[in-house]
């Protein structure tokens, strides 16, 4: 757990610095930092005290984990929050020695490296999610058979390709299997009334998220990408169904609304509205800051923040499980756009461009996202039809800055902006 401890130290120090600043400047950021720090602390506590610790994936029914009071961490993404940490570059270099093909997603290669080198907290149970991509399934299989972890009990969820009723019924069955597994492993029972309570709270959160996203459609956009990007981890990972998250979301909405009323944009002036049509890159914070400073360009929407999550009908156990299934495979970021046919990917792209008055789209060209890059031509056509710039950076590795340097990316984007008169 060395990496988690190192990162927790950083968060603790940052929170201390926050305490010295005026509340108005930190009120939206403090809960984000606290949520992350608490999550680390709980993971450490689980390991040290021998409590059940679940390794899972983002957004695999976090409502169930909360309702059952089971702590979990994201097996392939717990290092996401550490992406700015100095040790990540060293770790990326070390994970090159794994013997795993380098044309594979670096996020997963890094996670495998952490497991292999004992830097990942050893869980007491694992949930394997088999979407959205081939690499993820391969990664989970490699984790399952890894010598040090092969005796850890696991459960996997099999997501079909479609979105119809038959699919949702099938997947609801997979989720019931997940509950049985968790009950067996922890000795805890899932209280359906408690689950209803958590889902109803999470429904409020998704409503607020949608409201917040509506406000981001304003020109100029009230917030920058960095803050808006915190909705996903808080709602989906750390505080799903937790009233603290609802309170934070209300603050976010109120702040954004106030700025929209005052026509106060995050950037003044806001010259370019960018859509980052991918999940977060390790280096996206740097790129977003550069875009803002150099080009007055704001990333006003991205794949992880675009959240068309449907609310769950809590009238019965059946509707709740089916609703959780829909959330997990039809609404969930990336899984939504990537799991099935390209229709949703292309539909979401068109809708985001129109709804957020996008000037330029940075498409997903991550070397690990094989299915998304196989839709690049189709995405380019959507952009062309809608008259927006397609800011193709060429193949990049969104988790390994060594693949394409930040300077190369900046130069390429600058050329686009200059040529198209967007600056």
């Amino acid at each position, binding site marked *: 757990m060395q990496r988690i401890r190192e990162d927790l130290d950083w968060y603790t120090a940052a929170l201390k610095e926050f305490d010295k600043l005026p509340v108005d400047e930190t009120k939206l950021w403090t809960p984000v930092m606290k949520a992350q720090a608490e999550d680390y602390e709980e993971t450490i506590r689980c390991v040290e005290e021998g409590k059940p610790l679940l390794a899972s994936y983002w957004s695999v029914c976090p409502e169930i984990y909360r309702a059952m009071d089971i702590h979990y961490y994201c097996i392939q993404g717990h290092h996401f929050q550490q992406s700015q940490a100095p040790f990540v570059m060293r770790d990326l270099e070390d994970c090159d020695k*794994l*013997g*795993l*093909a380098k*044309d*594979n*997603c670096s996020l997963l290669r890094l996670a495998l490296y952490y497991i292999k080198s004992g830097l990942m907290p050893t869980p007491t149970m694992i949930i*394997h999610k*088999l*979407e959205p*991509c*081939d*690499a993820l*399934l*391969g*990664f*989970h*299989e*490699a984790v*399952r*058979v890894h010598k040090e972890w092969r005796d850890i009990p696991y459960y*996997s969820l*099999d*997501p*079909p*390709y*479609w979105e119809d009723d*038959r*699919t949702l019924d*099938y997947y609801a*069955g997979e989720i019931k299997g997940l509950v049985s597994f968790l009950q067996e492993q922890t000795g805890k029972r899932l209280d359906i009334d408690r689950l209803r309570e958590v889902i109803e709270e999470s429904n409020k959160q998704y409503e607020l998220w949608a409201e917040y996203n509506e406000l981001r459609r304003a020109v100029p956009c009230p917030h920058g990408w960095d803050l808006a990007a915190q909705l996903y981890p808080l709602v989906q990972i750390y505080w799903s169904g937790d009233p603290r998250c609802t309170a934070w979301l209300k603050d976010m909405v109120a702040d954004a609304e106030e700025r929209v009323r005052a026509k106060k944009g995050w950037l003044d002036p806001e010259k370019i509205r960018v859509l980052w049509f991918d999940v977060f890159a390790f280096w996206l914070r740097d790129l977003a800051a550069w875009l803002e400073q150099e080009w007055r360009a704001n990333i006003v929407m991205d794949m992880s923040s675009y959240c068309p999550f449907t609310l769950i009908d809590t009238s019965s156990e059946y509707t709740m499980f089916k609703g959780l299934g829909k959330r997990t495979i039809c609404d969930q970021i990336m899984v939504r756009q990537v799991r099935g*046919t*390209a*229709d949703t990917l292309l539909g979401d792209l068109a809708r985001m461009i129109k709804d957020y008055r996008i000037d330029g789209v940075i498409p997903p*060209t991550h*070397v*690990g996202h*094989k*299915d998304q*890059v*196989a*839709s*690049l*031509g*189709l995405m380019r056509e959507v952009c062309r039809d809608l008259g927006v710039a397609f800011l193709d950076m060429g*193949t990049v590795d969104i988790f390994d800055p060594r693949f394409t340097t930040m300077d190369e990316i900046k130069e390429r984007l600058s050329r686009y902006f200059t040529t198209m008169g967007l600056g």
Partner: protein
Amino acid sequence: MDTKIESPALQEFAEATETIVNPALRSWKEQGGKVAGYFCSYAPEEIITAAGFLPFRMRATGSTGTELADRYLSDCNCSFVRNCFNMALSGEYDFLDGAVWVNSCDHVRRVYDNWKRKMKTPSFLHFLSLPKKTGEKQVSWYQEELTVFKESLERHFGVEITDERLWEAIKLHNQKRRLQRKLYKLRKGENPPITGAETLTVIVAGTAMPTERYNQLLKELLDEISGADGNADYRARLMILGGILDDPAYIKVIEDQGGLVVTDMLCFGTKVMWEDVDEGTPEPLEALARYYIKDRPTCPRFFGSHEKRAAFVRQMIREFKVDAVIGQRLMFCDGWAYEHYMLDQDFKDDGIPHLTLDREYLLAAVGQLRTRVQALLESIGR
């Protein structure tokens, strides 16, 4: 390693393998026969046969470039799909009456999305949702998918696919598998009468011509080579495994270095013929679902299946007296990247000499391939 077989049957198989529209397929079309292309060995060729069509496994044999496909795909998509889709855009798959996909991998499943939007033919496109686990629930799911596929074929083409026709098709394809296994059995001996490259030729041909004709030719070939002098001038017995490999020339390069490929775990190989569809199952579609999901040697795209594959490899190594294993992978194939990673650990633990190679779909970097194979053979003292 030069071939020792002069067989008309093998010659016809080679014609089928070296081309897309081979003489048997052309003759089938001239007689009014329909052809359905399929992109992965998990598409049920038995149902296509039961509809009266010729199932044709998609390849990009003879492709000369990817210029047209590159407008839509990326340089980090595998060269199989880029070449294959390029051939489709070039009109070289215009002979197809239907095309079938499963969500076999991230590259292939997106060919469907591009094909659907950019190709005018064929008029029948179908996609099956293949589960990613291999339990009973998944057998039931896939059985439903097969039912939807069957009904879709019936509706579109106005054909009736009765249980009787399905059983006939299953028996026909089982016969093909049995004949192919007989061929493999001959390779277990000290002096196998057929090389690995020739065997791949035979197996690929089985996905590109009418099955009745294929079975007849394969029987002839088996008769011709059963008592023949075999290959004795090899340095080591090799097994090859990995993702799609339909080019016998690749194996020939390996064999020219002195390593005789005696068995494999390929989807143009043992994975599609080592087990039969159970003819004792009450329902034909259940029998097919069970075969594809549970019974046949699995693909890395199924979660929880690595041990089964590793056990299969060990069984092959024992039965065929394999000296070393060569794993091959198309660049950018994520599924096989992880599988090779895991198998490499297994081989190290078991002390099995092995080599893992990345490659492009069209034969390239031959010099490097030669050098790596030579190094492997030398490392095992051969």
